[in-house]
């Protein structure tokens, strides 16, 4: 009797569990619901050069997931590439990137503006006209004052500390310095004198000095219009006022964002975006491996971060022809490299730095970063291939002798007066496993030519602010080699090289020119780039700067980073936007 009752209870429990499994439908929060590989795939890397599954089919819930969170959904306060990609759902900055695959996608084109900036006053004045019939999500018409206010917000670094600060650097300063619109609002709203709005559809920027890349600067989401009466300061991230095809329905911080169609958006005013899904859901803080498994199972559509699948999923994808045919391995736009400091002795001698260039084992560095698929292609130039004007060259045999050229390394050591090698430190971010491996690999390779290195790991949160980016610290601790990575804020040579190679960017804290290069040829070329409006001429300087930086051996390029992305077969209009190095989110739809 007792046994029967026990067995009965156990059976009841099991039945309840199975009944629950049957209830509630196939998916609980969106997601397309069907498993991967159910339709014919377009082929490996198909989305790098063409649009996969082109379609204007509407409907469905497009589901994203991210293993972390965004820095902010406020377009004025974000600096992550994937976040800028996502803002295209709900913003229209003055300019944007053309929605097309391949090199085409590196072109900056008008978005809210009717055309690129009209440049006058010897490059000091940029005038944009905005489309007269773009509306916010409540039907009010966007005016130039809303764009000016959006720019003004970026000046208050206490309220909006996370986004770029180009406007405060480039615009003509005023005295006293403009504090932003949050202090003394009655006085400071529309108080930025360097930006004028002579009429509701015209906005004029006055620069401190000529800057030919200004169209790229206004393509950053910070120029997405913000109506002053809808701004809620640090709370604006909870509901940015939309001008894009979608608007915020709800945002549970760090959990889930839901977007629904913006009924006041018109496709004719925003040809770079589409309004196809009925709803967009973004789930934040999903376990990374769980996210990949859901992606492969068809329970979600896109990994929002766009930095590629984890190791376990990568192995599954690469070992399955079906899954591999639904994946892409684009260059992300990031370069992983080592800064070779030009001040710390004896690295201040160019031949000692050249010894490091020849001595490094590029194949092992590539392996450290994840191999040719997950890590990237061995780099021989500083600029990755998706920087406008980049040209291939190979001064130190990175691609012809990827294992290193020890004979030439030793010859350079002779030339720098260190025939038996020398000692220096390698700095790296200790909580980044790939960077740790890369530092160890570099240490091992250089030891073969007599360059003895000590490893110094630092937390990534303070690596640039407190250690590698503080020249005094670098000098005092003999850090001749510092690991790092870089991607440009815009895809031309100036956007890539200025912060990391210009002499005038060396600063006592938060330094980005960590090799402390102050080369007159590089500085002069960068100045010419900034002042040259003609794109062809400007882009021709990219390769020249690259060559000069490499001649100075100021940077040891390691890999042009790649990410293995899985392309859900249920997605339409899928292609890699080369500026972001991930799929273009603004045009995605569902079958």
């Amino acid at each position, binding site marked *: 009797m007792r046994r029967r009752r026990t067995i009965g209870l156990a059976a009841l429990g099991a039945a309840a569990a199975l009944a629950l*499994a049957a209830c509630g439908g196939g998916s609980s929060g969106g997601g397309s619901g069907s498993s991967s590989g159910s339709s014919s795939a377009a082929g490996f890397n198909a989305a790098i050069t063409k649009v996969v599954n082109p379609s204007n089919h509407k409907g469905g819930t497009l589901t994203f997931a991210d293993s972390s969170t965004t820095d902010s959904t406020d377009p004025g306060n974000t600096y992550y590439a994937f976040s800028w990609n996502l803002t295209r759902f709900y913003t229209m900055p003055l300019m944007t990137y053309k929605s097309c695959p391949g090199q085409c996608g590196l072109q900056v084109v008008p978005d809210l503006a009717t055309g690129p900036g009209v440049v006058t006053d010897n490059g000091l004045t940029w005038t944009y006209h905005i489309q007269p019939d773009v509306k916010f999500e409540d039907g009010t018409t966007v005016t130039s004052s809303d764009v000016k206010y959006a720019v003004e917000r970026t000046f208050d670094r*206490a309220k909006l*500390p996370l986004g770029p600060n180009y406007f405060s650097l480039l615009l003509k300063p005023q005295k006293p310095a403009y504090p932003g619109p949050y202090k003394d609002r009655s006085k400071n709203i529309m108080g930025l004198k360097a930006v004028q709005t002579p009429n509701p559809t015209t906005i004029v920027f006055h620069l401190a000095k000529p800057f030919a890349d200004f169209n790229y600067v206004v393509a950053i989401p910070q120029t997405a219009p913000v109506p002053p009466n809808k701004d809620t300061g640090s709370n604006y991230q909870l509901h940015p006022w939309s001008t894009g095809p979608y608007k915020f329905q709800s945002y549970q911080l760090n959990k889930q964002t839901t977007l629904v169609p913006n009924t006041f958006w018109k496709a004719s005013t925003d040809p770079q975006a589409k309004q196809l899904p009925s709803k967009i859901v973004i789930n934040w803080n999903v376990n990374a491996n769980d996210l990949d498994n859901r992606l492969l199972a068809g329970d979600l559509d896109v990994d929002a971060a766009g930095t590629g699948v984890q190791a376990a999923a990568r192995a599954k994808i690469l070992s399955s022809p079906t899954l591999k045919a639904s994946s892409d391995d684009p260059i992300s736009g990031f370069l992983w490299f080592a800064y070779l400091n030009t001040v710390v002795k004896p690295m201040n001698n160019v031949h000692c730095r050249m010894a490091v260039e020849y001595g490094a084992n590029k194949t092992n560095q590539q392996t450290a970063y994840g191999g040719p698929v997950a890590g990237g292609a061995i780099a021989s130039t500083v600029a990755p291939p998706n920087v406008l004007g980049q040209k291939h060259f190979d001064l130190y045999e990175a691609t012809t002798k990827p294992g290193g050229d020890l004979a030439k390394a030793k010859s350079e050591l002779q030339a720098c007066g260190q025939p038996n090698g020398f000692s220096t430190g390698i700095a790296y971010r200790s909580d980044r496993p790939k960077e740790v491996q890369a530092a160890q690999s570099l240490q091992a390779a250089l030891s073969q030519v007599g360059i003895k290195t000590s490893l110094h790991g630092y937390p990534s949160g303070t690596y640039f602010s407190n250690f590698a980016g503080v020249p005094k610290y670098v000098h005092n601790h003999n850090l001749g080699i510092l690991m790092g990575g870089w991607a440009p804020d815009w895809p031309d040579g100036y956007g890539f090289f200025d912060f990391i190679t210009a002499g005038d960017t060396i600063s006592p804290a938060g330094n980005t020119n960590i090799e402390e290069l102050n080369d007159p040829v590089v500085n002069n070329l960068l100045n010419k780039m900034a002042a040259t409006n003609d794109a062809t001429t400007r882009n021709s300087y990219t390769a020249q700067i690259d060559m000069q930086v490499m001649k100075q051996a100021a940077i040891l390029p390691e890999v042009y980073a790649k990410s293995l992305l899985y392309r859900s077969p249920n997605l339409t209009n899928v292609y890699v936007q080369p500026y972001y190095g991930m799929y273009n989110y603004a045009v995605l739809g569902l079958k």
Partner: protein
Amino acid sequence: MITFIVRRLFATIFLLIVVSMITFAIFFLIPRLAGQNSYELATQYVGRNPTRAAVLAIEDKLGLNAPVYLQYARFLKAIVFGTHYNSGTSTTYCPPPCFGYSFKTQQPVWPQMVSDIPVTLSLAIGAAVIWLVGGVTIGIISALKRGTLFDRFSMGLALVGVSLPIFFTGLIALELFSYKWPIFPNVQYVSFSTNPLLWARNLVLPWIVLALLYAALYARLTRAGMLETMSEDFIRTARAKGLRERTVIFKHGLRATLTPIVTIFGMDLGLLLGGAIITEVTFSLHGLGLFTVEAVQNQDLPEILGVTMLAAFFIVIANLVVDILYAVVDPRVRH
């Protein structure tokens, strides 16, 4: 009993203050003693552009340049009296208990924690019911059938359950029952009020995975306790008096065994209510455990302080409830 409860509540408040002081010291004071100044601390919250002006602005805004004791006093005052916060366009009042504003998101910490509590409660209580019922039942049967195949098998299984970490069993469970055979697909938290069936369905795997570890412990604990108790003289007396075996086992044997089980259950549940970190991370459930992980990763000090104090509160309250339950379980305690 009332006096006892009041005394314990006062002790709880004192304990929470001590916990807050220790946590504050760990995250605010020790870095200072190690040489980190407030400017260096502020650079972590300025994103990719740590210009001097931006860092100073954040340092001032977050109050990091004030003396540590003043920062602590402000923190305590906000918990008791609330505080005002300027978002830029308006000043809002953060009512007590106000655990301050996240350094990263600049949003109040308490509402975020409150929204995570139902997830952790659902996970912890559901798993607790399973492990308590399952573990104790198996322990009783094993004790009564000592030496049999059932006893050996169940204790062996308990050993396996104790040995396997949650992140392992969780991943296996997901791989098998969520991806390979989608019996429980797309596991994510749905609130009970939204859809009770979906709420339960999506929690079955996390419940079982979490309960497996604890059930194993409770099975072994119950078995050991029952074996000891059932050999006592009063059990023999009860049988000699002609009581039914069921009455002997449950009214006399189990009741005496329950005391240590109740103690440990209180501690375990209290700990879990502060966040079942590994389970929540494995299944991406946005409870207090995942909140804790994010807070530590972001070095978001107000969030770290808030969740630490909340976890301490749950543990203390759980132990208070356990102490009260003693009087119910063991009449000797009442006198």
